[in-house]
Structures are given as C-alpha cells and as structure tokens.
C-alpha cells in the first residue's frame, strides 16, 4: 500500500490497473475524461497490459465490453450523464444476460439544457435496469468500491453488472490523500474471472440473448430480480472481507451511519454526505445515514436505523419529474410506510446541475424541516 495525494480520476484509473481487466472500452465525456485518459497513458507506457478499445460512442463502449465479458474477459468502462443515457438499451440487456460488467459513472446532470456539473440524475434514472448501484462519498471509496465491484459482480451468487457512482468534478477532479493498494493485495482479493453460466466458447457453444415468449420472459425477469435482491448479502460480505484485508470499511456495505443516535436523520448519497457530516458535528439534533447501495435498495437496513426518528430528511440530487419529488425520497418513504409509528419524512431537491450544497443550505433545510408537513418536498438553493 502507498499513501498518495492525487486526483480522484487518477486514483480510480490506477486501481482499475490493479484489477487487471482484459478489455477496456472508453468514450470520452466530461467529467469522466481524466479516468480514461489516465488509463490510455498507462496502456501506452506498457504499464497496463489491457486491450484498450477507442470506440466511437458510449453505446459502442458498453456493447464492446458486454461482448468481451461474454467471451470470458474481465472488462472496464466509464461514462457520465448523456453517455449513460445513450447506453440505456444495453444496460438492461447486459443485466438480462447476467454479464458482470464494472463501470464507473462520474455523475453529471442530464440535458436539456446541457450542463456538465454534478448531480445524480443520470445514474438514478437507470435504477430499473438491473445493475447494482454503489454511491461513494470519497475518491478513496470510489477506488475501493471498484475493487469490491469486481469481486461482487463476478461472484457466482450475483453475476450482475455494477456501476460505481462518483460525483463528477467533486470527486473526479479534486485531489485527496488516499491509500493506493498494491497489485499483490488486489490480485489476492480478486479471483480470476471464470464464467460457466454464459460464455462464448466454440468448444462449448451457448446461445446468449435469446428471444423469449411471455411466460419464459416473466420467469427469467423474476430470476433476475431474485438475483439482485440476494446480492445484498454478498455486498455486505465483500465489504467485511475488504475491511479485513485493506482496513477500510464502509458501514455494512449497504448503508453507513454517522452519529445516528439523535431525533432527526438526514438520508443522502454521495459526496454531499461529507458536508452533512460537518453540519452533524456542529449540532446535536441530527445525524446522517448514507445510502451506499442504492440498488439493491437497502429497505430493511433503512427501516432498522430510521424507525425511531422523529424526522427523516431526504436530501437528494435528482428529481423524478411528474412525481413532485426525487426517487430516493419516495423510496425511503415507501420503506418506512410499513411502520406502525412512522417518522415524518420530508424531502429536499438540491444540487441539480452542480449547484453547491453548502453548510448554510443544509442548516436551513434542517430548520425548515421542523415546519414542513410529512411528505412535503422543497427545492434547496
């Protein structure tokens, strides 16, 4: 392990190198560009032996890694915003085909109007696709989650694609001190990818991506749903195993609490939780619960840690247009609906298009939440 101080993108690229994917496919889009540029540098210098495909669109990027994965190779790709939206078809298709892809999403706002700064609309909008979604708070966690992602995705109990979501610019372009693991440790942690469930091999011909009539389709979707539900256990297990080896732990893998022993709790995802921790430290009435695994949704875990709260404040960087709230709010509130004594749940839409979420704003939201009615949502700027 080396202690270092570098840009988040750089750290992620170096960690990808340690995971030794056979095939990397990349198409540039702000703010993911530094990740793929760094990987290209590493390949060009012979430091990374992966095959690097310079594709002509994000759609090609996801298609080519899907093909490579189906042929039995470990792969990597990264994208943001419009690129992720362009991949939409293949996100569903690759989850349906049970291909354990790993992708880093540098979260960025969606057009129109076009905006390059951070919010989480892009990946949250893909929540139905069947991909596991991990939202990270720091660049260190992004790097660690990439390593964990390969182990989780390729686990025979899971066999699903994973996206590691890191806030664009905030985590990709800023520098932070971090621990970079060494190659030996990572290779020990990651067994070789050896698929038997779906592989393109002339010695064992299989047909992948078939046509299905209604009843088989329904049954296969249920199988897929069960797989992503059961992956919760594996996510937590790998989080523990990672902690044992690398000495860094992220809650129970699905959620992370900080000073959550007070009457109010803020629920949020991503780097903004870092700012929220500062607010929590300056007060004594509110704690924070970070959702790390957004899909599969940690319903049971959230009920357990939020059931005794007076007020639950959901602060999120997305809006589900037409619903009047963000998706995280509606899902958290739905999770708590089963409780006999329900906390008041209020929502705040913040940070869209990269608007800064300051300590002042967060305090204002907390103050305001006392006056808000249950189920009310406000826009925070």
């Amino acid at each position, binding site marked *: 392990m080396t202690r270092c101080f570098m840009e988040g993108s750089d750290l992620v690229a170096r960690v990808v190198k340690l995971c030794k994917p056979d*095939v990397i496919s990349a198409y540039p889009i702000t703010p993911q560009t530094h990740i793929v540029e760094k990987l290209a540098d590493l390949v060009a210098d012979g430091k990374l032996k992966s*095959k690097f495909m310079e594709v002509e669109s994000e759609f090609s990027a996801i298609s080519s890694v899907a*093909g*490579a994965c*189906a042929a*039995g190779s470990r792969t990597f790709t990264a994208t943001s915003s419009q690129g992720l939206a362009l991949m939409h078809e293949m996100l569903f298709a690759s989850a349906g085909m049970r291909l354990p892809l790993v992708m880093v999403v540098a979260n960025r706002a969606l057009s129109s109007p076009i905006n390059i700064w951070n919010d989480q609309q892009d990946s949250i909008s893909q929540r139905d696709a069947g991909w596991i979604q991990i939202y990270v708070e720091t660049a260190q966690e992004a790097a660690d989650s990439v390593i964990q992602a390969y182990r989780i995705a390729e686990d025979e109990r899971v066999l699903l694609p994973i996206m590691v979501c890191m806030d664009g610019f905030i985590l990709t372009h800023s520098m932070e001190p971090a621990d970079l693991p060494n190659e030996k440790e990572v290779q020990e942690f990651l067994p070789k990818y050896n698929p038997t469930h779906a592989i393109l091999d*002339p010695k064992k011909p299989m047909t992948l991506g078939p046509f299905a009539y209604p009843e088989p389709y329904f049954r296969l979707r249920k199988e897929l749903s069960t797989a992503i539900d059961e992956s919760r256990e594996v996510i937590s297990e790998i989080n523990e195993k990672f902690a044992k080896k690398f000495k860094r732990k992220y809650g129970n893998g699905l959620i992370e609490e900080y000073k959550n022993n007070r009457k109010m709790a803020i629920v949020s995802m991503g780097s903004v939780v870092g700012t929220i921790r500062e607010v929590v430290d300056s007060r004594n009435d509110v704690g924070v619960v970070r959702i790390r695994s957004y899909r599969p949704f940690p319903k049971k875990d959230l009920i357990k840690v939020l059931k005794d709260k007076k007020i639950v404040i959901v602060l999120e960087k997305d809006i589900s247009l037409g619903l009047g709230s963000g998706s995280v709010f509606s899902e958290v509130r739905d999770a708590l609906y089963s409780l006999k004594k329900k906390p008041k749940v209020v929502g705040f839409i913040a940070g869209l298009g990269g608007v800064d979420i300051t300590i002042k704003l967060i305090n204002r939201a907390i103050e305001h939440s006392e006056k808000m009615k249950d189920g009310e949502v406000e826009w925070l700027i």
Partner: protein
Amino acid sequence: MADINFDLLAPGCRTCAGCGAVIAARNLLRATGKDIIICESTGCLEVTSSQYPLTAWKVPWIHAVFENAASVAAGVKTALEAQGNDHTQVIAFGGDGGMVDIGFGAVSGVLERDDDIMIITYDNEAYANTGVQRSGATPFGASTSTTPAGLASIGKKQWKKNLPMIAVAHGSKYVACVSIAYPQDLQNKVKKAMKIKGARYMHIHTPCPTGWGFDSSKTIEVARLAVQTGMWILYEIEDGKFKKTMNPELKPVEEYLKMQKRFKHLTEKEIKIIQEHINKTWKELDNLEKSGVNLRTIL
C-alpha cells in the same frame, strides 16, 4: 464442399418457408466451420432461431440489441486477443435494417478501427421481421409497408444505400458481394475473407418470399435473376482493387421485377429508369475494373 451434409444450424427454425436469410446462414456456416463466434443483431433470423429455451445454433452465438452487432463482435474479438486466441473467427451478422440503418454507426466504428472481425449483412431489402418496412437498402421503386405504392407514390423514392462501397471507403481490405443463388461463389469468398486480418465486409443478397411477394419455391430463382439482370452484382474488392466475379450477359431487368409483387405497380417509364440506372452502373463498374484504380487509396 467436403461433407455435403455438414450443417451448423439445426432444423426447427421458425423462419418463413423459403426464407433466403436462413439459406445464407447455413451456407455461411458451411464455409466457416465451427471455430467461430456469431454476434447477431435483432431481425428475422435472430428471432426465429433463438426462441428460449431452444436454439438452432450449434456455434457460440450472442444477440445483444438491434444496432450493436458490430460493436459486440469487436468486444468479443478483443477479449479473445487478450486471452491469446488468434484463431477463432468473430462474425457480426445482421439484416440490412440492423447493419445499414440503425447499426450503421457501429459498423462504421469497426471499419474505421479495422477491428479484426467479419461484418456480414443478409439483405432482404426491408425491415422484414417487423412487417416489411423500408430500410436504406430497399431498392428504388419497391413497395413496402412504409413506402407503399399508390396513386401518389411509386414506392421507395431513393436508391439503395451502398454499404459495400462505404466499407471500402473506410479502408476495408476485403469487401465482397455474394448471393445465395451462387453458393460456391459465397463459400469461396467467405473462405478467402477468413484468411485476411482486419475488418472485412460481406453483403449477401437474400430474397424474401413474404416481403417481396413471390412463391416460396422461387427464392433461389429470384436471387439468380437479380444477378443475371444486374440488379445485384457479384464482386469483390480485395485490397482496394475492384473485380466482378460474375460477368453475365445482362437480361432485361423487367424479368426480375415482374416476379415480385413489390414491383408490380411500376410503369414502363419507371422500369426504364431502373434499367438505365443498371446499365450506367454496370458500365462505370466496368471502367473501374479496367482502370485498376485502388479504391482504398483514393477514398
């Protein structure tokens, strides 16, 4: 053709009786042998050959979505290279809809990067699987369900998009046009293409009895007439040099057109336009062949 009974596609495909596309697939596989991986786009052949939980394919086969057969194939080949496998052929296979239209970007990307795969289009000149709507490869004057012939319409107004020439413009070292009516020519070209590295392109003419409106027994006859009238030209462009592999004495195109319901509405004047277009194209291609110009260099 060593073992005539050799077949890597099982029977039981739910294609229409007399389907040209499946004849193309069978003969393609007879030429390639089993050390291949097929990446297919959505279309007639895909939907009828891979109905869960049964499959007609006896080779590894993947279908992702409609427009990315070429990209998926590029990814598969790259993975094989990373694994040290340099002998398995990877084929991106799709209908004209999936390769000429919606998949055009993916095809272009593969050709530009010169990924070591074979891109093969089976051309039934429409989106046959969804009910015979027009595609970029539908010929001029053809009636389809989105370009129906009528009092105010002659059918498709545009000429056929020429993907083989577009492939050579990208620098492809081997481009070929084949027809199911000439299986030996098809096999020869496939075998030749397999020995070449880089992005290779092949376009197979596959008449569609359901879509074009002729009896299911006439599929090969229609395909043969297409070549004999110059509506379909068998050629190869090897390393930029164009060469016709069949030089028939051209029959009048009317013989070909009148066999199909999709051209039934054409007037004498319109048939004349098509005939002139064929004559002109044929003459220019003759000139091209005689000139020995290298298309890879100039395009």
